[in-house]
């Protein structure tokens, strides 16, 4: 799998939270050659199972490991159609309204007279000339902005409905030093890391049943991971998500270096599983940074940890810049290294892994 290609392809798949059908079908296709079974569940989680390839001792069952990366992207929704045919927006997940003015978007008109059509829209606002000095000092709020389809009002009402989705346009751009910027890197880039791991496992053995889960609805509360984990009932969970890389204005201790995966520790994450991943990284010369979360991690890991009777959980993060914009920027080598780390971890997981987890 070519990582740069993967990132370019993902950037043209649509999948706002709760509406991941398109991107889910695409992910399913990516995993099918690498796994024993791939299914899409009622919440659009993609669940790819790669069964154990090394036996465990008699009378024991293969441990189940669930890896989770989410496929949903932040997006907008038609909340109202104004009399002149412009659209007022609602949000799906956390969209920073500062990125919206003068952005181009795709309006997914699904129930109009032409059937499903993708309409190009521009996000407009009142021109600055007409604003007072005081107003110009403030950012636009989402309710001040509108989507302009360039169509007469009667055309808009015939083709677009309240509830239609609006996605950001953010095609991938290859930058220097193996870096890449695109929309929805959060968190499909981590889906890429899972694919890398699955690819490497083709030539390695493992005692665990590995569930690669591309989850839904992480941006609105991890509903997908909660449900998928309930069904899978994993013995061990690893979430992969993005985190913040440093910018000139970042506060200290809130970022992780762009060029390596970050391993997170904190009360929600199992200390011995954390240590095992850290040791695996060291043994295979995967450079990692250590990151902390004093409480919630704001990833699928939070949901995974308390499913059923509880799941020992770890979190691996891919640092990126400009999170929740249409130009999320990362280093492709981190995707490769995260995949390599996961593959080694899974392959080296032994039967005694859960002895004395808590002493």
């Amino acid at each position: 799998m070519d990582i740069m290609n993967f990132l370019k392809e993902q950037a043209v798949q649509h999948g706002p939270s709760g509406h991941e059908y398109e991107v889910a079908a695409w992910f399913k296709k990516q995993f099918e050659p690498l796994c024993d079974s791939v299914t899409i569940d009622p919440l659009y989680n993609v669940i790819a199972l790669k069964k154990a390839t090394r036996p465990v001792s008699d009378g024991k069952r293969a441990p189940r490991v669930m890896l989770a990366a989410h496929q949903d992207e932040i997006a907008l929704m038609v909340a109202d159609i104004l009399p002149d045919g412009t659209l007022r927006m609602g949000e799906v997940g956390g969209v920073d309204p500062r990125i919206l003015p003068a952005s181009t978007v795709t309006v997914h008109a699904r129930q109009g007279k032409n059937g499903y059509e993708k309409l190009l829209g521009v996000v407009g606002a009142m021109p600055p000339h007409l604003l007072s000095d005081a107003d110009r000092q403030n950012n636009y709020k989402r309710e001040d902005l509108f989507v302009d389809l360039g169509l007469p009002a009667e055309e808009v009402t015939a083709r677009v409905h309240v509830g239609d989705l609006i996605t950001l346009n953010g095609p991938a751009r290859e930058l220097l030093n193996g870096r890449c910027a695109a929309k929805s890197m959060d968190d499909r880039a981590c889906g890429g890391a899972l694919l890398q791991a699955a690819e490497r496992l083709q030539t390695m053995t493992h005692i665990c049943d590995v569930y690669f889960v591309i989850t839904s609805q992480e941006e609105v509360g991890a509903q997908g991971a909660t449900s998928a984990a309930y069904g899978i009932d994993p013995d061990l969970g690893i979430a992969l998500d993005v985190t913040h890389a440093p910018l000139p204005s970042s506060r200290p201790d809130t970022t992780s270096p762009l060029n390596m995966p970050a391993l997170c520790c904190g009360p929600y994450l199992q200390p011995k599983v954390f240590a095992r991943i850290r040791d695996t990284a060291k043994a295979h010369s995967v450079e990692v940074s250590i990151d902390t979360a004093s409480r919630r991690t704001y990833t699928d890991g939070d949901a995974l940890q308390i499913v059923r009777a509880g799941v020992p959980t770890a979190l691996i993060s891919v640092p990126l810049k400009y999170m929740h914009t249409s130009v999320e920027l990362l280093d492709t080598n981190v995707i490769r290294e995260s995949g390599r780390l996961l593959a080694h971890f899974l392959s080296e997981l032994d039967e005694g892994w859960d002895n004395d987890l808590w002493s």
Partner: protein
Amino acid sequence: MELKTLCELPGISGREEPVRMAIYNECVEKLGKENVTIDRMGNVIAHKKCADENAKRLMIAGHMDEVGLMVISATEDGLLKVCAIGGIDSRVLVSKRVKVGYGENALSGVIGAMAIHQQTAEDRKHVLPIEQLYVDIGAKDKAEAESVAPVGTPIIFETPFTLFGDHKVLARSLDDRVGCYTMLRLLDDETNYDTWFAFTCQEEVGCRGAYGAAFRIQPDIGLVLEGTASNDAGDIPEHEQICVLGKGVAISFMDHASIAQPEMFKTMLAVAQEAGVPHQVKMAVTGGNDGGPIQRTRIGAQTCALSVPCRYIHSPSTVCDLRDLDAQYELVKAFLQK
């Protein structure tokens, strides 16, 4: 186990190992190895059966973890930057002693601040947020600090367990070692319920352990034994005191995590009255505890929280009254015999 021993064991949320193993060993000693487990979340679950096979399943929960700090990085000068684990008001941190790490290798540290002489009038007004506070362990530089206290190292307050005043005790981790202590005492008592003692973990960071424990136990009834905030000292109008030290165990009708089912709340009041146990109704809706997850896991359970009032909760110096601790024990004991 003595309350002192239990309180002095370190165990911030997610890093409860020393408390967990001490409690596990005592449960095993009293109930036998076959009735005690450490579950996947790190909860200690001890099962005490009763003669009646159709008895209701009762879950008694108290949390092992305490609030504390965790190392997040080291400065070039060898100072440790930290974050709070659990809800800590940063105003209580300045000029306190701490222990960095657990066990024999734990290091002493202090939380300093700019001397008052060097502060401007403006500085004096501002609360120092935790981002601007440091733990000083005397390390000479970043490399030394990172080698002895790597990122993720747990930190607890250093507060000796002290009896003082009128039946009062001053300690660090009373919330919720008081609940754990009561539960350990109850292990010896007769019960008319199929009783499951859940010593939970990670309560202070969102009741994480209780979810899994309740899922496993599937209780009909859940009793949560807690330490709860009291606001009774100083010039406070009676209706804002929440609960009062020395007045008995505090029975809750509601907190931010659950509303006690009315029949459950009334039952607890009635049991306290019949058994002559000093008790009070907690006069506020504050906090939240394991009752939330226990009440609403799977098909749900009836729950009520029974607390020991604690002054200066979530600070290095928490104070409670030993008579309230006894009342908590006596109330649950009376309930078990119902």
